[in-house]
């Protein structure tokens, strides 16, 4: 039976059919569906971890104890987990350890485009690279088996166009979970230098072995004077582009792109064209083997962004000297205005940013931001930087130390806070760095689809208490009080101490989901047109997405978008915004706060 599965779902089913017993991950687009899918299987131990490092450690530890284990994350997540990742190659594993990363070329929802296959080369961990969901299923399964047979971790590298493509997949039923028992082996597991040095020799030996294994994931298709080496989704584009160009070629399909099989030299002619997604990882290895290549290094294919059929047709045409140029795409006579991402109507972060904006008015503020829904504070000019998980406090502390004129307001969501900020809190306290830390606690990892965040079990104020950081808790939907408290926090930070503001209200989308289940419809708000004086506070300052500026400058609320948060009614100075059903207002705010 063929199921229409996402690549990520296929990876989960592949791991299940290999008897995966323990799995952990941290949500991040485009990887989240792997753990989401595994969570349905109650006979396994599957968790959302607080960050990728703990996720890899959970899986690594389980695999040391003989279990088959998986850790999943997006590409940048592997940076966070890089430490245990490298050590895992040295100790090796006993069960199977499959680490899955989903790379995001073109940065559809990421801060950089890194190609995680380099991590394979650097850590001596082999990398499998599927091209489509069916293959993703198979490689997840084979990857775990390979890992166990070699006693070595395996990295499965997917990209957006594998992870987020839906295609027919034939799946095998899940195998029973394979747990294990830990046996002591100090020389192997305790990486003090003398042990680690011995293990290093072992790693290098395994690496040579892997170069032979790699051939099992290599296949040669077709006949022709031209040879194309392709990996991952690059293979699919290459096949179709060659067909379009009417070129007969031999295609060497690479399934294990790191380390590259020594056998490649047996099949390639003197020059090959290389098609791969991301950096020239396969191409670089080919050059090291002394093979002449035309690929990304010399600019036949773009070095940034995703591959596309167009780019591969044009690149192949150039590499083969065919002179094919594709026509320019049609352009409309009217340019549509961009539809930039906005915070959802009624998003609690909208209220937090509004309060901070008012409280910070007239003062020199550096808005130190972070990675999550709230990065959209950029729309109201409240993100001066946002570079990686935890950057708000981390970089914010450095800025505060250097620029004594400005006040740093660091905004961070709850999931990111638990992911990356706890050691930073300790620095904040021990170094007495004066900044305003705003924990925007919506109690979910909302950006990736609403995974649970640790904030309910471990409220941020407990941590502040323990570490000794002065803090306030506000409800961002209570606009007036939020502004007052934010003002107080800013004044106190200016007098030289760190102050935390915990702004708490659940993600409105999660509240809506719960309301829908109970049959409750939130009240809608509307603008009393002749009261509106076109001041723009609601659509320019609060920036609710449901509020449109009409040609005459007056506000209009799209009833199909309004989620009834009441914030616009609170901020309108002319009392021009009203709820359509006033009796529902307090009920909704109450239900919402319990979501």
């Amino acid at each position, binding site marked *: 039976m*063929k199921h*229409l599965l996402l690549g990520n779902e296929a990876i989960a089913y592949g791991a299940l059919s290999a008897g995966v017993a323990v799995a952990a991950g941290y949500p991040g*687009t485009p990887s989240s569906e792997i753990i989401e899918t595994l969570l349905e299987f109650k006979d396994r131990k599957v968790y959302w971890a607080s960050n990728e490092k703990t996720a890899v450690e959970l899986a690594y530890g389980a695999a040391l104890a003989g279990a088959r284990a998986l850790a999943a994350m997006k590409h940048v997540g592997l940076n966070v987990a890089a430490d245990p990742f490298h050590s895992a190659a040295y100790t090796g594993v006993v069960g199977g350890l499959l680490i899955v990363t989903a790379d995001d070329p073109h940065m*559809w*929802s990421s801060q950089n485009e890194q190609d995680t296959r380099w991590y394979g080369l650097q850590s001596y961990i082999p990398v499998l690279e599927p091209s*489509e969901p069916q293959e993703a299923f198979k490689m997840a399964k084979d990857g775990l088996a390979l890992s166990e047979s070699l006693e070595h971790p395996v990295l499965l590298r997917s990209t957006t*166009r594998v992870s*987020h*493509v*839906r*295609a*027919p997949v034939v799946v095998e039923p899940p195998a029973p979970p394979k747990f294990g028992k830990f046996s002591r082996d100090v020389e192997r597991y305790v990486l003090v230098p003398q042990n680690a040095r011995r293990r290093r020799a072992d790693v290098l030996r395994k690496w040579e072995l892997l170069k032979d294994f790699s051939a099992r994931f290599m296949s040669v298709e077709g006949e022709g004077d031209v040879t194309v080496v392709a990996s991952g*989704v690059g293979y*699919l*584009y290459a*096949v*179709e582009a060659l067909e379009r160009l009417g070129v007969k070629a031999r295609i060497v399909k690479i399934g294990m792109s790191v380390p590259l099989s020594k056998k490649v030299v047996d099949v390639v002619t003197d020059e090959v064209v290389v098609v791969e997604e991301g950096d020239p990882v396969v191409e670089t290895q080919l050059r090291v083997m002394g093979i002449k290549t035309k690929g990304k290094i010399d600019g036949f294919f773009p070095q940034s962004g*995703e591959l*596309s*059929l*167009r780019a591969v*047709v044009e690149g192949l045409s150039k590499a083969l000297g065919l002179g094919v140029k*594709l*026509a*320019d*795409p*049609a*352009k*409309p*006579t*009217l*340019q*549509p*205005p*961009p*539809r*930039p*991402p*906005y915070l*959802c*109507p009624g998003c609690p972060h909208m209220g937090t940013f509004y309060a901070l904006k008012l409280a910070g008015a007239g003062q020199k503020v550096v808005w130190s931001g972070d990675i999550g829904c709230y990065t959209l504070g950029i729309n109201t000019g409240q993100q001066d930087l946002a570079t990686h998980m935890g950057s708000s406090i981390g970089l914010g502390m450095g800025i505060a130390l250097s620029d004594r004129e400005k006040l740093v307001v660091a905004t961070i969501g709850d999931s990111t806070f638990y992911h990356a900020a706890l050691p930073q809190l300790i620095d904040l306290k021990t170094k007495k760095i004066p900044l305003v830390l705003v924990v925007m606690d919506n109690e979910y990892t909302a*950006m*990736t*689809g609403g995974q649970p965040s640790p904030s309910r079990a471990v409220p941020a104020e407990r941590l502040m208490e323990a570490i000794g950081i002065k803090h306030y808790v506000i409800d961002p939907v209570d606009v007036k009080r939020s502004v007052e408290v934010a003002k107080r926090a800013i004044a106190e930070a200016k007098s030289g101490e760190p102050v935390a503001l915990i702004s708490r209200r659940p993600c409105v*989308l999660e509240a809506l989901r719960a309301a829908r289940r109970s049959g409750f419809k939130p009240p809608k708000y509307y603008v009393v047109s002749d009261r509106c004086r076109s001041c723009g506070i609601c*659509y*320019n300052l609060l*920036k609710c*997405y*449901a*509020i*449109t*500026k*009409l*040609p005459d400058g007056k506000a209009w609320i*799209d009833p*199909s*978008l309004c989620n009834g948060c009441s914030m616009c009614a609170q901020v309108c100075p002319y009392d021009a915004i009203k709820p359509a059903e006033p009796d529902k207002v307090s009920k909704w705010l109450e239900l919402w706060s319990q979501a």
Partner: protein
Amino acid sequence: MVTSIVIVGVGGQGVMTLARWLGRAAVAAGYDVKIAEVHGLSQRGGSVEVHVRIGERVYAPVVSEGDADYVVAMEAIEALRAFRYLKEEALFVVNKRIIQVPGKYVDPEQVYRALAVHKGLRLVPAFELALKIGDPIYENSVLLGYVAKLLRLDGFVDWLDEKNLRAFEEGRRLASAL
């Protein structure tokens, strides 16, 4: 032969649902299919773009610019944005509906005029029909019926409920009137 379809709309309109329905029908009819969520599914109110490719064997997951046989737009401003995907002879199925971009009011008539530059334009009153059936959410069933008719795909009806089925039939009827 691979048929390339680009479906666009605004987050929350059910663009992905429409794509999955098409994909299911294609698999039921024995085809290979690839559906790629190209843009914007994690946020509400943003542009959403999904690519569907159907054929005996489908390789590339994403449709290139100038390469779509069909562009289906659930919203007209997004249809303008998807213009670049149209092949010259492509059918351009557009729901007659505007969802304004906050703060940047555009005149609907201007949008429809600009779309009409493409000679394969089919403006479909899916939103209007859906409202008649009782809820805007039925607009994707109307469009599904319309596209299914164009693609000669069956295998939908057994899993659509009564109202969606009605919307679906309305869509088919509109397409047969061509």
